[in-house]
Structures are given as C-alpha cells and as structure tokens.
C-alpha cells in the first residue's frame, strides 16, 4: 500500500496498530512494509523509544545483505520488472550488475566501517530500479528505493557507472531515517554534504585508499566523453570539477564568503554543499590515513546522534567538534583537526554561540 507511493504521509491512513499486527504476523514483505510505516510514523510523532522494544520483531539479523534489482524498461512505473535478487546470477545488462554490486558495496561499507545494518540499521532490503524512463538524466532515492536513469548520452552517461553516486543516493536514505534534514537552504546543503561525504568514503573504502591517495571527486566518469570535466563535484577543490561551453562551469563555492543565495535547486543545496565538503576534506587530510576511520567516524556519529531537521552549517560544525571531543577526548588531535578544517572554509567553531550571547 505504501509501496506504490513516493510519499510516506499516505501510509498514515492506516492506524499504527494495524501495521503492528502485520509486522508481527505478516509475511516478510508485509512485515517490512509495515515496519517502515511504523518507523516513519513513530518518528513523526516523536516516539522513537517505541521502536527499540518493537524493532527486534521485524529486524533482519545483522550482516544479512538483501538486494533486489528491477528494470523499468524505459517506462515510469516503479519498481518495474524484477531482474536480479540476492545471490542471483550475473545479468547480461551492466546497469543491473552495477546497481547490484554498488548497493552491496554500500551495505558492506556501512557495516564494516560503522557497524550499520543497512539504510535503516535494521537490515532493510536495498531495492534499485535501472533504465528508468528514456534518456533520464538523474539518479535519486525516492524515500523507499534507488532509481537510476540511463543519461542522455550527450551530457551524461548511465548513473550506475560511478560507485560514489550509488553511495551518495543510499546515504540520502540513511539521512532520512536518522536526521530528517529538511531539503532546503543550509539544512538541505548539509543533506547533500553527508551524501557526498559517505559516497566519497565508499569509493575510498572500495579502493582501499588513504585520504591523500583519494581523488575526492563525486560523479566521476558519468559525463559523456565530449564534456570538459572530471566529475560533477570536487570535495578537495569545490568549483573546479568541470568547465564546459555546453553546460557551463562547476558553481560550487569553497568558502562561506562565497555562499550562493538562490531560490533554484532548493536554495542551492547542490551548490553550497561545497563549503562543508571542503571542511571534511581538510579534516581528513590533516588526520591522514584512511578517511573513514576517524574523520568518517566523527561525521557518522554526528549524523546519527546530533543532526536535527533544521541544523545549519555553524551548528553542524559545533556538533562535529563536540563529537570529536566525546570520541577522542577534549583537545585531542582529532578535535583540533575538526576545528581547523571548519576554519579553512570560514565557519569557525563557537561563532554561533559567541554571537548568541553577545560575547567577543
């Protein structure tokens, strides 16, 4: 019932006790659907603790990866035709295999790096649809599943080609379950930022790269060959990823002084994410080694434990600083690196507090 809708509110039509009954007594698919509806509706009502007692009933055992790939066959009906399930044979269609492998690697990354059991941390099945519509220039998480277009062939190639795109989109699912960051202005740019961080870290984890070895690019290799650009975004040097006569240049700022005020793109959510992206890069480079181990852990715990729907850049900076102190100690190397990283992009830690209290 909720399955065919991209909007959760429709799920609320059914009283939660009905979902609870289904989640206890239904088949696996019914249980999952009911549990998702309960999760979201409980959150909306601020009853998170309810879930802790109930979760065990609908949870897949830790470490169980379940992937399902569908083919929309260039149509707009979701999810489309089932073409590959968990453990199923390789397809002749590379998009199917890329979606399957990419979502599997994303699952493994979240499990190994952060002990997270899938998108919802309760073993949620990872559904993906490929070949959505014709020449469709996008990939997105619709609240329940991944959707990939083939690209138009002139600007973009297929969106499954780059694993950081897959990690980016699935992280929108994690953010939906954990932080519910509003997709507008600074909270929206942070929503984008966390997706870029964990998309990039996924790629680094798969390649077993250190922060220094990594390219810190998002959407590498999805531009058509004739486009002048290495990727869609650069966390290392925001604003430098592409410059092409056909599509213009990368509009991302790398510093708060160049923050872009706009009404398009939900208030520049894909533009101003460049600012926190570079802060994360600076922290990761300062700490060295594998970025998911320390910088990634600080950002992950911040997303899970601290971020609120309307958190802005300055608040997010303060939260990462606080979390670094909690994990590694006050005045630790890690906490100092966090402070320095945000300072590079013009978001000093404590500025918000000083301003609020009138202190210098």
């Amino acid at each position: 019932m909720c399955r065919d809708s991209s909007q959760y509110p429709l799920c609320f039509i059914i009283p939660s006790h009905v979902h609870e009954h289904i989640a206890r007594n239904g088949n696996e698919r019914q249980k999952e659907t009911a549990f998702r509806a309960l999760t979201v509706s409980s959150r909306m009502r601020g009853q998170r603790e309810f879930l802790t007692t109930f979760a065990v009933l609908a949870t897949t055992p830790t470490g169980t990866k379940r992937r399902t790939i569908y083919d929309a066959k260039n149509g707009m009906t979701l999810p489309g035709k089932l073409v590959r399930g968990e453990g199923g044979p390789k397809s002749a269609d590379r998009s199917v295999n890329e979606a399957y492998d990419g979502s599997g690697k994303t699952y493994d990354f979240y499990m190994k790096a952060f002990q997270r059991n899938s998108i919802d941390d309760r073993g949620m099945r990872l559904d993906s649809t490929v070949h959505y519509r014709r020449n469709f220039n996008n990939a997105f998480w619709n609240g329940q599943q991944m959707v990939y277009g083939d690209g138009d062939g002139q600007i973009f190639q297929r969106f499954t080609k780059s694993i950081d795109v897959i990690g980016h989109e699935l992280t929108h699912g994690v953010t939906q379950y954990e932080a519910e960051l509003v997709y507008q202005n600074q909270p929206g740019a942070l929503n984008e930022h966390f997706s870029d961080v964990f998309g990039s870290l996924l790629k680094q984890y798969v390649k077993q790269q250190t922060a220094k070895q990594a390219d810190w690019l998002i959407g590498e290799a999805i531009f058509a060959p004739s486009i002048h650009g290495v990727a869609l975004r650069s966390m290392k040097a925001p604003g430098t990823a592409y410059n092409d006569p056909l599509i213009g240049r990368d509009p991302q700022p790398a510093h708060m002084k160049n923050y872009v005020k706009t009404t398009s793109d939900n208030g520049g959510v894909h533009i101003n994410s460049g600012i926190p992206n570079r802060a994360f890069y600076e922290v990761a480079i300062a700490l060295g080694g594998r970025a998911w181990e320390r910088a990634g852990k600080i950002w992950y715990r911040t997303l899970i434990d601290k971020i609120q729907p309307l958190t802005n850049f300055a608040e997010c900076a303060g939260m990462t600083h606080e979390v670094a102190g909690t994990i590694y100690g006050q005045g630790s190397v890690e906490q100092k690196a966090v402070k320095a990283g945000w300072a590079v992009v013009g978001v000093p830690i404590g500025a918000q507090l000083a301003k609020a209290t009138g202190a210098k």
Partner: protein
Amino acid sequence: MRVKFERSGGFANVPLRAELDSAEMAPDRAQELEDLVAKARPFDQPSAPASANVPDDLQYHLTIEHGGQSKTIKVSDTAAPDELKSLLDFLGEEALNKLPNKS
C-alpha cells in the same frame, strides 16, 4: 505553441534551459508536442503542486503559450503526473537538441 523550459536540481544540478517554438520544429515533432500537451493538459494543472520533498529530485520551470493562453508551472519531477512527465521528457530532448556546440 511556444514553450520556455528550464530544468535544474537533480543529483547533477546541471541546468538545462531552452525556448522552443513548435513552428520551428520538424512537423512530426511539432505534432508529437501537440499530442503530449493535449494529454498533459498543462492549463488545467496547478501552477506549483506540492513537492514530494525527494532528495535529488529534478526541478522544472515551464511556461507554455498556446491558443491565446499562457501558463507557468513550477514542479518537481516526482510530483508531476505521468502525462506531464512524458511532456517534460519530450521538452528535455528538444532543449538538448537546441544546445550550441553539440557534438
């Protein structure tokens, strides 16, 4: 029929803009546009339907002038009815074909 088309947002956020005139299109494409508009009924659509608040959703800003009527619609992709999606996909193709320096 004249159409101002703008697509932004999405994972890539590479904007695509074009002004289209059915009089300048190949006859079969102009006919296809007429048919898609007849099905999508843009003049009966709300000007700004509620967004589904889906991350990385494409955003459209559309103005259609036809038969003495003019209509502007701002809509996110997942919030658009299927008939409007078909029209938006067609307009995206036409906008792409009008880009300069096309390889």
